[in-house]
């Protein structure tokens, strides 16, 4: 009787933790968790690509997340919902996944592929692309630019 109750409790806990532990993965090179749900809010911590964080709440296009003891807000376009691991536990999804999806799920056009492509095409102007990717404007600068131009703050939770 006592054992049965223990199993029930454990089962419930498992279901609850699967349901609650919504997590998201960073899909941008770097993502910034901010103090408030605004692009111009001060940064709390910068998180690299592929890192997983716990989702606590959602308001509009902003998620409240926890990452290594830090809490704050991240914009939805920087992350992707982690698929609940239930399906992989049950091993049902793997077979349904089409060949196309397998091919491009993180194994498609990678840095190694770019390297092979560049080796074949040394005339490509990657140096200029790198230079352009270096054209960056900080959030603080954009904030001032928006304010000085009498524009509205973009991406607020409103």
């Amino acid at each position: 009787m006592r054992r049965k109750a223990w199993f029930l409790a454990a089962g419930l806990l498992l279901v609850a933790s699967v349901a609650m532990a919504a997590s998201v993965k960073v899909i941008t090179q770097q993502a910034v968790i901010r103090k408030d749900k605004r692009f111009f809010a001060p940064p709390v911590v910068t998180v690299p690509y592929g890192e997983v964080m716990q989702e606590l709440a959602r308001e509009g296009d902003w998620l409240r997340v926890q990452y290594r003891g830090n809490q704050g807000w991240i914009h939805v376009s920087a992350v992707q919902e982690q698929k609940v691991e239930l399906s992989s536990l049950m091993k049902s999804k793997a077979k349904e996944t089409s060949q196309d999806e397998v091919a491009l799920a993180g194994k498609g056009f990678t840095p190694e592929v770019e390297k092979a492509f560049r080796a074949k095409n040394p005339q490509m102007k990657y140096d200029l692309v790198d230079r352009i990717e270096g054209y960056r404007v900080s959030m603080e600068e954009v904030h001032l630019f928006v304010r000085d131009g009498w524009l509205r703050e973009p991406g607020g939770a409103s």
Partner: protein
Amino acid sequence: MITRSSLMMVVSLGVLVLAGCAHVVEVGTTAAHQAGVITKQEKDYYDRRAQETESAVRPMTDREEYYVGRAVAATVLGQYRLYRDDRLNLYLNQVGQALALASDRPLTYGGYHFAVLDSDEVNALACPGGTILITRGMLDRARNEEELAAILAHEIAHVNHKDGVNAIQRSRWVQAATALGADAARQLGRGQLDELASVFEGSVGDVVKTLLVNGYSRADELAADQSAMIIMVRLGYDPHGLTDYLARLAQEQGAGARQGFFATHPGMGDRLADARATINANKWQQVNHQVRDERFAAYRR
């Protein structure tokens, strides 16, 4: 006429905004068709596009899109010279970054970057992932910050809608899948990597051809104009910046210009009419932009 074009706008926008939800678009087009707003032919066209978009978009991750975009930019920069003016670059990236943050896809894997190509021709190219290249000729035709914002917002919309990667032929995915085999977790062998690199090269070629030779479809251009105006209005720019700029280009095109942009962007008059109808339908008013006019003048001096 206004209701018709505004519904058309909703439909064409829906096709792209809801990329990945073809059945939702179909529900919308069915309703629009039943209401007599669009013809059967138009309905079929939008349904088909929604399906194409869905199947073409799904397999590409943001990170892959970034690598395709880099290669596209590296190819384009082999044909154009980069215009180097730090002050102008800063201004361009400030306007562009603010607009990108107000767009439906504010953050991408590598972020948005804006650069000027040293050419008199009129052209602007959105590389997948967010690198946006505009010619000096295009920039020189903008008379104020609202018009510059319109140009950049239109290109940001193409990135938002993934119009570049949608140009990649679907057969490339099959090739990629074949190259990799079923076991995606395995380390890639030399042959597989070469095979993937050539699929990559083909994909990049598809995008470059669309950007420089074929142009996007008329529906994609109209949808990009719609989104551009929405982005502008969200940020507080005057959407008339788009119609003012389009009017200037339409006039040039009417006078016989057929090079570069004018070849890949036919029907400027149609775009202008469509944008004007949207402004009327939304009752968007003129906005006082004197403070931005002054800063534009200072940067362009």
